[in-house]
């Protein structure tokens, strides 16, 4: 069977992931801000007996080796065998899309343009002459709409023929650059990639391509020869390329009418980006969001708790024999997962999706920058930190939007203090449920305090050079219910498939340990920690299980202390327990993600330091509380 491998490329937030979902069905998360996709997703589907694979990539404005995401896309394009590229383009800002396209065409990779936001452009009075653009570039230009699926069939048809397409258009630079290109070309080793392209990359200073040069000294002498006329050749190349892109765009763009006056987008931005209104409204929206989350979450939690406990008593498991104990314990784990964690996770993702897709979340970045900036935290960190309120694992991955590994690690370290939904479930479902909502609120405040102290300490110890902020703000859009539900499901899927089974297994393991009376063997040596925290020795069990998976903490606490926790623990103990379990790396998955992003050593040190810090902090607070 014939196979075709196609890569979707384009600037951030242009609709690549939307197009992927339109081509092959819902597979990836779509959000209305740049930097949603941070890794490559490959999806296969058969059309007309041809096996097509599509690769969704992180958005890029240009192919240069700046941020992590760009490197990912660059790698796919230039190091893998691919048959063609769909350059998803923005009809309202065509020249930018053409810039990337020109870079791709320089590598002799066949491409088609999928022209998105055609309707948006029309309402702004912009019309694109696709035929004219096709003629100028020698490639297909197909208007699409991933939401209504318009143009998808045309796109597929043209992809079926993409293998036979030859790249005709080529960017020509001025004579001196051209001469340098041919000089370098003549010195290059034989490769799959066109020599002209490699030479241009080398002249642009892309070090990944230096390896094709037999001898790097050649480059120095060529650059030296050029230095008189092109002291900054890399930017001359960029200017020429952008100049050509804008000329091409200008030729194909027709301004039908100009829009007068301010539209609604502008009016909203005048408020949300305002120096004092912006932060106020941001706080207001956040407070309302959390109010809704906590209120509805609590409501759902009590309903689900009733349901599950009714169900458990209906099953009537005695718990006398070993299999019975295991069954009972794992069902308790399941019940805890469904009633304590699920409501918060579910609601959180619906609310987050709403804020994301309306374009409000990215305005928060601006307002956060006013605040974060003081702590040396880049505003870009806002999205990963907000995602962290859902789950630490994708949030850790999302730190890739930051410009350097060092900055990325710095932001990731703060995820230790951002309560993910599992930790919120402990704070709300255990501290709030048994100790009162006020106590839960104190835990949240304590986390904030711990994070601020961490920020100050780290600012002293770990120098983070801040990359300059350069970020595009997406337009406000009408949220689509279907999309919010779909991505809510993608993000919750792991919780259901991984966490809930883990809760059942954890419950069963504890049942066995308990039945054979071996829990004290674990409890005894670690009693240093619990006594430092002023907690009963057995609470080390939920805390330890919590290192594996935070959701186990709540379930295990009920297992070791019985369901009437408020009669066993004092409010202060409930509070300390909440703080100690909420700071740190929340589960084994998050730990694995840290290893993947930062390597084993950094992952281990961050984990130990943050968990240690959490325990130390909770114990110290306890002592301070007792002084008063």
């Amino acid at each position: 069977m014939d196979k075709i491998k196609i890569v979707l490329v384009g600037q951030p937030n242009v609709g690549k992931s939307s197009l992927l979902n339109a081509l092959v069905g819902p597979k990836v998360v779509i959000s209305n801000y740049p930097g949603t996709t941070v890794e490559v997703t490959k999806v296969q589907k058969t059309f007309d007996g041809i096996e097509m694979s599509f690769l969704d990539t992180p958005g890029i404005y240009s192919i240069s080796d700046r941020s992590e995401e760009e490197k990912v896309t660059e790698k796919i394009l230039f190091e893998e065998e691919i048959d063609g590229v769909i350059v998803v383009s923005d009809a309202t800002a065509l020249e930018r899309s053409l810039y990337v396209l020109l870079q791709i065409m320089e590598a002799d990779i066949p491409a088609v343009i999928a022209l998105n936001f055609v309707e948006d452009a029309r309402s702004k009075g912009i019309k694109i002459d696709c035929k004219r653009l096709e003629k100028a570039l020698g490639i297909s230009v197909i208007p699409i709409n991933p939401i209504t699926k318009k143009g998808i069939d045309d796109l597929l048809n043209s992809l079926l023929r993409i293998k036979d397409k030859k790249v005709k258009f080529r960017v020509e630079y001025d004579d001196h650059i051209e001469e340098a290109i041919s000089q370098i070309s003549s010195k290059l080793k034989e490769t799959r990639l066109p020599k002209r392209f490699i030479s241009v990359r080398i002249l642009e200073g892309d070090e990944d391509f230096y390896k094709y040069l037999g001898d790097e000294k050649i480059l120095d002498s060529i650059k030296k020869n050029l230095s008189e006329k092109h002291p900054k050749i890399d930017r001359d190349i960029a200017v020429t390329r952008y100049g050509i892109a804008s000329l091409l765009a200008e030729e194909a763009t027709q301004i039908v009418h100009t829009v007068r006056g301010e539209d609604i987008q502008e009016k909203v931005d005048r408020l949300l980006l305002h120096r004092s209104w912006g932060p106020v409204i941001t706080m207001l929206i956040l407070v309302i969001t959390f109010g809704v989350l906590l209120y509805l979450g609590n409501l759902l939690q009590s309903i689900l708790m009733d349901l599950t406990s009714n169900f458990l008593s209906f099953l009537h498991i005695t718990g006398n024999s070993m299999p019975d104990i295991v069954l009972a314990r794992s069902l308790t784990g399941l019940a805890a997962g469904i009633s304590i964690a699920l409501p918060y996770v579910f609601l959180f993702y619906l609310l987050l999706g709403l804020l994301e897709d309306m374009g409000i979340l990215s305005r928060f970045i601006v307002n956060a920058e006013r605040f974060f900036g003081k702590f040396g935290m880049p505003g870009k960190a806002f999205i990963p930190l907000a995602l962290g309120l859902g789950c630490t694992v994708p949030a850790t991955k999302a730190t890739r939007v930051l410009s350097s590994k060092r900055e990325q690690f710095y932001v990731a370290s703060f995820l230790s203090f951002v309560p993910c939904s599992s930790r919120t479930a402990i704070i709300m479902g255990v501290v709030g449920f048994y100790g009162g909502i006020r106590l839960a609120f104190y835990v949240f405040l304590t986390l904030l305090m711990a994070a601020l102290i961490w920020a100050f300490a780290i600012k002293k110890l770990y120098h983070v050079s801040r990359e300059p902020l350069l970020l595009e703000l997406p337009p406000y859009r009408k949220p689509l219910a279907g999309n919010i539900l779909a991505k809510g499901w993608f993000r919750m899927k792991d919780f259901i498939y991984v966490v809930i089974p883990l809760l059942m297994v954890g419950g069963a393991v504890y049942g066995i340990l308990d039945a054979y009376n071996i829990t004290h063997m674990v409890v005894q040596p670690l009693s240093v920690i619990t006594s430092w925290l002023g907690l009963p020795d057995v609470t080390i069990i939920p805390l330890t299980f919590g290192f594996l998976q935070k959701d186990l903490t709540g379930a295990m606490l009920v297992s070791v202390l019985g369901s009437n926790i408020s009669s066993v623990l004092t409010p202060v103990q409930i509070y300390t327990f909440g703080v100690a379990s909420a700071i740190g790396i929340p589960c084994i998955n998050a730990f694995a993600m840290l290893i993947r992003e930062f390597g084993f050593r950094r992952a281990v040190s961050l984990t130990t330091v943050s968990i240690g810090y959490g325990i130390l902090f909770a114990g110290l607070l306890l002592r301070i509380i007792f002084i008063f």
Partner: protein
Amino acid sequence: MIKKEDEQKVAEEDILRTLGEKNGDASLKSLMEEVQSSGSAFSRAIENIEKKNLIRLENNRASLTDKGIKKADDILRKHLVVENYFKESRGAAEAHSIAHIFEHRLSEEAIKNMESLYNLREKGEPLLKLKPYEEGLIVNIALPDSKLFERVVSMGIFIGEKVTVAGKIPGGVIIKIKNKKFVVDKNIAEYIRVIKNG
């Protein structure tokens, strides 16, 4: 970047301009060397401009007619505008070559804009000087870091674009260019030079 169907037009304009530079008269051989187009495009171009009464052919030499002189002046002017425009940042010889690339494709209006931009670039002040909702024209982007320069340019923040400040934050500005909004660090904005509109 030059398309096949454009090649002849480019050759025609180049021939006229070169003739203009040589006081209106040159041998075909030297013209052909100078113009650097394929032989067939060259002879078609010569044929065509002769037909349009822009040049006269005699003894393997070409000379401009009165109509041709006017046309050549016009082309030369365009060329010089583009060349001037790039001269400061890119050096004379290179600006000349860039002019070769761009002149044939730029519309009359774009050339005019370039001309005025060039005259204005000295007057530019840092983007940070604009107050919220003030509009300006980008006349220069003098970022020293080339990678950052490419990033800025590829995002659509380019010389000749109209820019409006949509807000300020302690670390930078929020700007709007062609319906797109950006948050730009002050360390970058400092190098983006604009002139106020109006």
